[in-house]
């Protein structure tokens, strides 16, 4: 009976140790991978794969300051109109059913009176800037820059 118990204890210890090792290795792999993934695959790929994590991080940051949002939020890539391609990411905010449809934020740049630069941010339902049609009921809550 004692032998069986000690055998079971050893097995449990081994499983626990394996789980701890996995968690540690997994955690460091994620930390290393994001920077590498960014360099290899680009902003669009990283935003798509980590949008949930980034969104939770932003909402947690807002919650800690008592400024949480009453609405749905989502992190999507920013598409530059003119330059083309993904230039960053944005957290969009608004009516849950509308936020679901947003695929990207189109950024349109304009200069006026020579000293002012305006970046208009339009949540859109496609990942193309060929025809920009904003999604109503959705706005921008945060702008995110990647360190490449």
């Amino acid at each position, binding site marked *: 009976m004692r032998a069986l118990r000690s055998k079971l204890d050893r097995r449990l210890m081994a499983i626990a140790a394996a789980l701890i090792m996995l968690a540690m290795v997994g955690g460091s792999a994620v930390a290393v991978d994001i920077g590498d993934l960014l360099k290899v695959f680009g902003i669009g790929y990283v935003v798509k794969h980590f949008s949930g994590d980034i969104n939770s991080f932003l909402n947690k940051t807002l919650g800690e300051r008592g400024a949480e949002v009453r609405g749905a939020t989502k992190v999507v890539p920013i598409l530059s109109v003119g330059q083309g391609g993904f230039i960053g990411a944005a957290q969009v905010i608004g009516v849950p059913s509308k936020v679901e449809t947003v695929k990207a934020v189109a950024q349109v740049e304009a200069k006026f009176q020579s000293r002012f630069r305006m970046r208009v941010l339009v949540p859109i339902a496609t990942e193309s800037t060929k025809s920009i049609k904003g999604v109503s009921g959705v706005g921008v809550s945060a702008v*995110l820059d990647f*360190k490449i």
Partner: protein
Amino acid sequence: MKRHRLRLVLRSEEAPLLRRVAMIAALSALVLIGAGAGLLAAAEATARTRSWGDREEGEVVVGGMVVMRIRTAAGGYSATQRAEEVAARLNKAFREGLTWNDFRVGEQNRETAVLTTRGDLIATADRFHAQANGTTPTLLAQAWDTNLVQALGGQVASAAATQPAASSGVDWERQDDKIVPIFSIGTPGVSIGAARVSGPKVEVGRVKAVAQIEAEWKNVLRARIYVPVSSISTKLERVQGVSVSALIDYNLPF
């Protein structure tokens, strides 16, 4: 002779028909009386304790239906004591003649709550409660309000119609724009640019500035979070329903 025959025929057909009509009327009256009695009986709130694992929860019951579940103790009161307080507030409202149509979701002391149309507090849907229910304070308050309306025999559809469809309870539709300064949370007196904010007209009117919070994620991402606020101070008073639609930078001449 023909007339007499006709009358007899009519009477023989009328009798069972009349009996049926009388029976339906009597049954309808009974149902109506029963429903009325049920509704009258429902206009009383009680509180009870519910054990959930090793935790104690308080339930507010109206007409045999659990309308609110108080999951946490607060302010020196147990969950059951808080449920009793909510039940007492409801009973006061019922005694004053308030019905299902006299409750709404609103804000009191900067928290979302179920209130009477007169503005009296019934229950606060605080952040902890919302988290315990896996939802937001607004949605929790709406659920409580809907339960209350149902328990009092009201029309849920008409109560829900006051809220934007399938939304968070906050109107995010863009009706108006405004350009306001952006200030950094670290240095509230210093403007670091400007932002165009958009949202419902009334809410946009309340926005005084946009607070910028900076944060870093996993050393690969720098986030600038924009919070439309109703006053320029380190304590953020977010104006819900308003978001940023453009950012404006100014190039200094030196």
